[in-house]
């Protein structure tokens, strides 16, 4: 699943996801009819609208193949949103079936494919934001394990690592002041260790944090973890 944000803004993160999966020996199918996981409507409280999109998505990804998503929040939506939105509906059992096939990218690499060490080099200091949707899950530790194993990559430690970036989808629209403050606090912490880039496993958080950096005129790069994994491979000629 490519995610709507990658579809609209972050094509390179989606490309990197494909390249990384192919490096690991997967054939990647991208069903052209896919749109979005339905999270915006679901979080906004419009579950009728969300169901419409969920049913579309479930139909598009029909079959047995694992569904890999380069986004913690979309995966979380599939795990926890689909069953709530379909609660009491005739097709409620579609939710757990779909959830069992769904993986967040790092979870798939580490816990699915059992790849714990990443080859290649990446000579940068990274401040990694473990997105809220990975709270209490294995995804964040999977991502950190992969990053920690890359030669040359230095992970910054910073305060309040658990804190939210403040995005929350439409939350950032209806609560622009609180949301932006949360983002600035997050960035202040992340920039403590003077990183070369900020990274995450969810483009939604990076959209928000990047948006604040751009508005403030700070040229600090932001990268998706798939891009780091891919670039690490490329630097050693493991990927063309």
């Amino acid at each position, binding site marked *: 699943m*490519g995610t*709507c944000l*990658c*579809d*609209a*803004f*972050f*094509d390179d993160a*989606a*490309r990197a996801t494909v390249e990384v999966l*192919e490096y690991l*020996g*997967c*054939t*990647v*199918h991208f069903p*052209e009819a*896919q*749109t979005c996981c*339905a999270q915006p*409507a679901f*979080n*906004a*409280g*419009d*579950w009728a609208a969300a169901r*419409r*999109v969920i049913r*579309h998505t479930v139909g*598009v990804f029909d079959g047995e*193949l694992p569904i890999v998503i380069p986004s913690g929040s979309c995966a979380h939506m599939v795990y926890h949103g689909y069953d709530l939105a379909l609660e009491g509906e005739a097709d409620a059992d579609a939710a757990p079936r779909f959830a069992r096939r*769904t*993986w967040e990218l790092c*979870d798939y690499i580490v816990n*699915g494919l059992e790849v714990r060490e990443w080859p290649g080099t990446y000579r940068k200091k990274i401040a990694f934001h473990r997105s*809220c949707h990975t*709270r*209490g*899950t*294995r995804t964040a530790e999977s991502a950190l394990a992969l990053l920690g194993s890359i030669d040359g990559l230095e992970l910054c430690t910073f305060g309040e690592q658990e*804190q*939210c970036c*403040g995005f929350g989808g439409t*939350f*950032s*629209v*209806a*609560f*622009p*002041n*609180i*949301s*932006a*403050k*949360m983002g600035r*606090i997050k960035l202040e912490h992340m920039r403590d260790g003077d990183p070369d880039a900020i990274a995450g496993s969810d483009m939604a958080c990076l*959209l928000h944090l990047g*948006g604040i950096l*751009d*508005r403030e005129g700070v040229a600090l790069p932001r990268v998706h973890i798939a891009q780091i994994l891919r670039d690490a491979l490329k630097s050693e000629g493991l990927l063309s």
Partner: protein
Amino acid sequence: MKSTKAYPTRQPVDRYASDLSPSVQESVYNASKLKTEARVDALQRDFADPDANRRLAGAIKQHTLDHLDTYLEQAESSLRENGAAVHWASDAESANQIILGIMQRNDCRRMVKSKSMVSEETELVPFLEKNGMEAVETDLGEYIVQIDHDHPSHIVTPIIHKNRQEIARSFEREGLGAYDDDPTVITRRARDYLRSKYLEADVGLTGANFVSAESGRIVLVTNEGNARFSMAAPRIHIALVGIEKLVPKDRDLSLFLSLLARSATAQCLTVYTQFIGGPRHRTQRDGPEKMHVVFLDNRRTEVLSGDCRKILRCIRCGACMNVCPVYRQASGHAYRGVYPGPVGAVLSPLLKGKEFPELADLPKASSLCGACNEVCPVDIPIPELLLRLRNRAKHEHVSLAARGTPSMGIWARAASSPGAWKTALSAGRLLNVVPHGFLNLSSPARAWQSSRKLPPFRGGAFRKWMRERNPPKNGVPSPDRKSEPDS
């Protein structure tokens, strides 16, 4: 963001936060952060698997709620055996009348009050005052709230929004001595003044942190000792108790007390933990001759019958507000109810009953980051409950809740129609793709973009790349999940 008028679509909690004085905001933020860190340290230091204890406590509470009729009847008969009179109040008015009635029948004029969130719900103090009774709050923070005619902004630390200078001015105004903002002096003055109040009082009113159905013991925790004093000097004790406060057995209390103290204040145990099983002992000189317990419903049964019943597990520790990034910016009064923070965003609208729309915006005051669930000592899935209430607000067409949230109808049509989606992508227009809110056209988006910039639009670029390449053909490993994805 200077002007709140420029963005009419902003939510009330967001407006409140931007109007809050920077000093209040800073003290709320810092205090909350410190308490959150201390809580984590205490739990990790003391237990190998604190999460297991949270989940266990949640299961015990849920069990109690799922059998609440049985436990309420059991508690009633245990309390009676202990010599306490048991009263039942459907709503706030009825609870207040019962308490007034007890005072009148026993020729009581004065009450000292220990901290009780339920009495804030029923607005007991103003009610008693209107009926010619004196009622004095004895928790230091609550006392200051009372003399300032203010409201608590936190359920554990009620005056987190006040600084010592303000408090010192209030004390001076109340004739408790010349201006002195030394916290020790403030505390000593309250000690001296409230002692006279305890001794004069006929009634001591408390809440209850827990009630053991098995033994009928009321369990109360305080650090200051005001609940002890309220039950040492006056001759009558009244406990006002929400019906959800029950736990099945005495043996369950170790778990709950250990979680409550650590979650609230990072203590191993609160300084005073009282187990009250009736009026004073026959050999005891001090303490109440009579004990009354008032069980209050006040729409709890309505919550119990709905899909947000898990919120009734709450043991009022305040950990969810301390960790909440929205609470930290907005402070407690932004939530316009007795219970602030994430728990309040769920509970306050629910306790409104038919007036739900008045507070239906609160469930939107969350980025759904999930920190509240992670710290909750009874594992309440607060984000799920917030989502359910957002859905309810949408169903009931509550305009306040919808404020600032882009309409999802057009978006959903596009997102369930591949043709429309692709057209939108290739046309380089965001409309229908990402919710309207991020468009330059609408007012909410202008607010958004005043502090953030959208990245350049690259709609369709990935799909084009995907179509035009010749990917290597491998296979697709379909590993089995060894455990749940989010475990």
